[in-house]
């Protein structure tokens, strides 16, 4: 067997399997699992022998192939109406991957900007800060990445893990403060509106606690078990 091709050209185990199928001129709908498994394992050995880093995904596929091979050896029960071919899932996966590989090749063949075709540079940005001008679309990724970079330069003790619960709380805080600025005074029930959403009730409660801790709002109760009224701590 000759391994004249470079191993790092494979984009993963599925790519390697497709290569073996093409090389052996195999029908993808009827894969001779024993043969393919044998060759697949030989490639892995070769990669290891060449001290190439064999990613975990290749090993997962190896055990999947071995598993399919062993299932092929089991006798098919005659009472099964439609015996399931153990190779079905693999064939489906390979066909799907093959389609997307073709899609990638199509993309590569296009007239790519910066490779085949070129545009003029953006006109120089004038420093005029005109607030009527619309904002350019920003990718959220740029925002997170900016925050991550700032935070990563801070000392570990200051690092605060952000989770989506905290962000839901921020959402609720913004809503409550907006409502309160408009109405001046609100009861807990008024803040809830006619919601039955348990999460919303919890977040409203947590948001109120947070705002009281921050001393942004004050809550008053005229009598025990009476209605709780919420005010801004500082009048504008």
């Amino acid at each position, binding site marked *: 067997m000759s391994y004249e091709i470079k191993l790092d*050209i494979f*984009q*993963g*185990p*599925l*790519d390697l399997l497709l290569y073996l199928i093409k090389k052996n001129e195999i029908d993808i709908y009827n894969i001779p699992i024993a043969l393919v498994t044998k060759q697949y394992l030989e490639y892995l050995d070769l990669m290891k022998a060449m001290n190439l880093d064999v*990613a975990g*995904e290749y090993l997962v*596929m190896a055990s999947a192939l071995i598993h399919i091979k062993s299932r092929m050896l089991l006798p098919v029960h005659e009472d099964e109406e439609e015996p399931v071919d153990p190779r079905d899932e693999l064939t489906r*996966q390979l*066909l*799907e*991957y*093959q*389609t*997307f*590989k*073709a*899609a*990638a*090749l*199509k*993309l*590569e063949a*296009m*007239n*790519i*900007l*910066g*490779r*085949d*075709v*070129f*545009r*003029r*540079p*953006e*006109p120089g940005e004038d420093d005029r800060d005109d607030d009527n001008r619309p904002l350019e*679309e920003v*990718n*959220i*990724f740029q925002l997170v*990445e900016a925050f991550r970079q700032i935070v990563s330069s801070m000392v570990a003790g200051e690092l605060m893990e952000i989770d*989506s619960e905290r962000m839901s709380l921020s959402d609720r805080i913004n809503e409550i403060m907006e409502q309160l600025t408009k109405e001046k005074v609100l009861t807990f029930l008024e803040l809830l509106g006619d919601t039955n959403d348990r999460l919303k009730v919890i977040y409203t409660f947590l948001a109120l606690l947070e705002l009281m801790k921050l001393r942004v709002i004050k809550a008053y109760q005229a009598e025990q078990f009476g209605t709780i009224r919420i005010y801004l701590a500082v009048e504008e």
Partner: protein
Amino acid sequence: MDAIKAIVESLIFVAGSPLTVKKIAECIDGATEQEIRGAVQSLIADYEGRNSGVRIVNVGGGYQMRTREDMAQWIRKFMGLKPVALSRAALETLAVVAYRQPVMKSEIEKVRGVDVSGTLKGLLEKNLVRIVGRKDVPGRPIIYGTTKKFLEVFNLMDLSELPTLRELKELESSE
């Protein structure tokens, strides 16, 4: 008509990025979108007709001036550029995002059979892929989609210009 044509040409020229007919109409008082569309078509024909090294193309829903593809070697030489290509891994990930969007990272990994963290981050940094939001399932995973820049870079009017998966499948089986 000729006056509008010249204005449209100068606007597409200075903009750099693809310019929509709507946006052009906002700049030229008194010109209808239909007139502008006519002017653009006439300009496109002009540039083609005189074998210009530059052409006007419809990408990402707007019009953009760009160099003809057979000029690439001279421009690369002028700019001192080596032909930059996206890696095969990046292209495959991009293809899955383009066709399956909005798509979760785990779905891309299932199709490609490998971890795509690195390539996905690279595509986000290049602004070819964006975070669309979260999927409304337990764990609320992030979902990804392609950007306007993706259309611009790959010379596409819109996503429907991509060959369909069926077409790609037929291509494969006829090989």
